[in-house]
């Protein structure tokens, strides 16, 4: 196990009070595993992974829970409670990040080589040039492009350079925030294949965020579905896609064309994502749910085992009581 998240809360602290963007999230990540996190805009998925590596920008702040990182060497560390100074040692060596747009994430006034060299040097690497060339080759970029500035590269190349940069210090955990959203579909597939291949070779774990569930099925081992700041379903990727346990997951699945099957009918989810400042007392998805019933407005469903997966939905209460 590399990551053990326990009851994580993240609040956006505003003048009108705190708004909870990530609510009581718990999960574990195995070594070398790819966990996909999917959900609509504003469901808290990006906030969640930024909290995992403590890169939240104010006014967002972790207000509860623990994030235990189990590094290869040394004791487990609770990322949520360490000071920034203590975390610096772990950054990029244990945990790295790939952001959505490499154009914005790479320093526009520095050559690629300099952006590799500074992080390599900060973490004790000697032959920075050699290492940079090796990393660029790993993602299929010719090493002589190291002298380029970000604006001189194509979108796909920049994104792959970002991934190479993330792997610079051989991290154990890489969080990826929609790294393929800004590139075309062909490049998207290439990048996904590359991530899988590199994971095989280097054995790092990934938490990958996207709103595109069909994409995650191709990449992830397990998938977590988020709604209104909470995980509403968590299970094996293929299983989630084939037999979603939560009506929201089903809605999300049917709103995207599958990557590999013929396109049938696409159905969106009616209604709008919930207002985090004003969540319903019952299930947050209840107002939009096609299968809601009396219980849904009264009590909030807990994330409980349904078969091999976890789901937070009252539809499964009856099965559970029947079994008991």
């Amino acid at each position: 196990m590399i990551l053990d998240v326990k009851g994580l809360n993240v609040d956006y602290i505003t003048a009108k009070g705190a708004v909870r963007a990530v609510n009581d999230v718990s999960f574990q990540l195995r070594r070398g595993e790819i966990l996909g996190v999917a959900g609509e805009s504003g469901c808290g998925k990006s906030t969640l992974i930024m909290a995992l590596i403590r890169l939240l920008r104010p006014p967002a702040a972790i207000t509860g829970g623990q994030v235990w990182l189990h590094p290869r060497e040394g004791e487990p560390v609770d990322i949520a409670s360490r000071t920034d100074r203590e975390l610096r040692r772990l950054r990029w060596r244990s945990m790295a990040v790939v952001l959505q747009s490499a154009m914005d994430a790479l320093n526009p006034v520095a050559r690629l080589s300099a952006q590799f060299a500074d992080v390599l040097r900060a973490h004790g690497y000697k032959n920075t040039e050699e290492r940079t060339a090796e990393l660029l080759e790993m993602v299929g970029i010719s090493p002589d492009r190291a002298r380029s500035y970000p604006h001189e590269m194509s979108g796909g190349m920049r994104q792959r350079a970002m991934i190479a940069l993330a792997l610079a210090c051989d991290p154990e955990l890489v969080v990826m925030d929609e790294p393929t959203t800004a590139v075309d579909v062909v490049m998207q597939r290439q990048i996904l294949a590359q991530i899988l291949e590199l994971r095989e070779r280097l054995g790092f774990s990934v938490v990958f965020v996207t709103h595109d569930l069909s994409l995650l099925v191709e990449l992830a081992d397990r998938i977590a579905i988020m709604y209104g700041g909470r995980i509403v379903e968590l299970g094996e990727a293929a299983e989630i896609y084939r037999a979603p346990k939560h009506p929201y997951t089903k809605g999300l699945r049917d709103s995207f064309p599958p990557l590999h099957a013929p396109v049938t009918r696409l159905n969106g989810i009616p209604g709008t994502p919930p207002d985090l400042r004003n969540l319903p007392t019952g299930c947050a998805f209840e107002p939009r749910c096609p299968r809601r019933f009396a219980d849904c407005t009264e009590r909030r469903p807990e994330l409980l085992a349904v078969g091999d997966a976890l789901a937070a939905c009252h539809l499964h209460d009856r099965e559970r009581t029947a079994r008991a």
Partner: protein
Amino acid sequence: MKQGRWRFLTKRVAFYLATSWSAITLNFLIPRLMPGDPSSVIVRQLQRQSGESVSPEAVAAIQKLFGDPRAGLLQQYWDYLVSIARLDFGLSVSRFPTPVGELLADGLPWTLMLVGATTVVAFVLGTGLGIAAGWKPGGRLDGFLSPLSTFLTAVPYFWVALIALYVFGLVLGWFPLGGGYDPDLYGRPGFLGSVLQYMVMPATTIVFSAFGGWLLGMRNMMITTVSEDYVLLGRAKGLSAGRVMFRYAARNALLPSVTGFAMAIGGVLGGALLTEIVFSYPGIGYLLYDAVSKRDYPLMQGVFLLTTLTVLLANFVADSVYVMIDPRTREAGR
């Protein structure tokens, strides 16, 4: 990449040479576009002012600059260009027969020393503090510096200068009331010290009024830049806070300030006017003031030409520096 840079620079050089040429040409043409015969108007005016007849040499000097009505325009233009190339700007009328070039050469070091140095100091000080304030907006440093800067930039310069003159010059008597040096010490051992002593008040008031603007500009740019993804990534990389602050945030936030700085350097000669009038400082600004009040047209023209060319030169330097510090502009130059 190298090639792009050179091509960009050659283009810029050509552009600025053309602009300088048009500035010189306008300087030649405008007096000649005035209705009637400007040189005889000026000669008559001078006669009325001084009450005595203008010497033939002065008339010749004026005619050289504003056109001898007997010569053709092209011939005049050619003569003008030749004399500019020889750095011959004609003779001053108010301090006849001192060449304008000599007056400019006398005033230039004073202005460059005072206004040039203070512009650099104000920029470095303001920008440095702006980086620190913008790194943690709303922090203690920012909470003190930003309101102070807003106040300082809102106060008119001449008011600050007059108050300083009154308090430190007149009431307390710490500093001299005006001038660039103590005339009694001219060419003697204490001369340099007296130059510094005379510089304190004008220099402090300039820095005082100017650094707030730099601070606010840099602070605001810094705040925008700090929320950029590449700064976040710098932090994620586990680099030291100082490196992220300077190499990632400030390095990018500085770009607009560099242009502003070059403009300020270009405006040094023109901007010196107010300071030099208030403190009777013997620089280019005071020279222009003097020329205007005494209707010394040749001197005015010399100052105008010098000011225009400085602005162009500073802009050219800014462009070239910008190409070096922002790789993205190299693309645009192609």
